[in-house]
């Protein structure tokens, strides 16, 4: 049985942080795999989709999403407008207009980002199933059982605020 500390110590995941405003405290936790951190580095270096839809860059969209997540902001306005969506196999999707992030919740309010990709590419090539399978395989590889994987599909199962 692995713990979060074991996974961090083994280099399997790293904590992801963004700057919080003066009066904010982190209400949730974000982690990422090494490949996901590489994707974030590409965003920082200016990677953007070919036909960007959003008014802000992909890096700005992801920073805004991470800030909202970490500061405990609302991730769901209603069924139609939401930053987060449950997939099958205990996989969740975080969304911005131009990006999609796939991962799983180790605990309530504690998300591991595994894959980041452009929204258009994910939708055009229907990559959902592939990402779900790859995340399940990674969890098996890391010996992650249900002590570090929230199975529920309701927002209340994975978010407390």
């Amino acid at each position: 049985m692995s713990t979060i500390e074991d996974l961090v110590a083994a280099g399997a995941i790293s904590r992801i942080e963004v700057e919080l405003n003066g009066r904010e405290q982190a209400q949730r936790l974000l982690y990422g795999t090494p490949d996901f951190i590489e994707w974030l580095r590409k965003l920082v270096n200016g990677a953007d989709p070919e036909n960007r839809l959003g008014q802000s860059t992909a890096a700005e969209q992801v920073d805004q999403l991470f800030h909202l997540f970490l500061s405990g902001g609302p991730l769901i306005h209603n069924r139609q407008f939401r930053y987060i969506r449950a997939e099958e196999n205990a996989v969740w999707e975080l969304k911005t207009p131009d990006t999609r992030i796939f991962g799983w919740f180790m605990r309530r309010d504690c998300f591991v980002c595994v894959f980041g990709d452009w929204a258009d590419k994910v939708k055009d090539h229907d990559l959902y199933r592939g990402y779900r399978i790859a995340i399940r395989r990674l969890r098996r590889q890391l010996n992650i059982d249900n002590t570090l994987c929230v199975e529920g599909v309701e927002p209340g199962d994975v978010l407390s605020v």
Partner: protein
Amino acid sequence: MLRGWSQVTSFQFDIGSRARNAGRFIGRVRDELLRALSERKKDDKLSQQELAKKLDVHRSQINRQLTGESNLTLRSLADLAWAMDMEISFELKKPVVEAGQNQPVTTSTIGHGQIKYIDGGKRRASLCQELAVAPVAARRGNESLR
């Protein structure tokens, strides 16, 4: 350590203060519109379809603006607030710095380079924007929707 993985225990996703300010402001405006629409939908059963009808545009246009998939201009923001019978308040103010609060990062990983604080970091150089949409009806009493 797992083979092939370099150990990074913490990663600061720092896109620079200018980009951060822009992205979070745009996101906040959109979130505020969605919050207001949810409130109107709950209280007055105002639908996206009705919003589109009031503004004489297709529903998909409203949808794209609210999902952030098309640009939101000041005009479209004002129109949406009008159609929801909400009032916009907008203010620019200097940030208040108090003892013990988070301090901004003083370096940037992208183009803008080192950020210099001439007062030793006690005060942020950038202005802070605030935008909130409040129900006009609350101010006007029981005036009905136009």
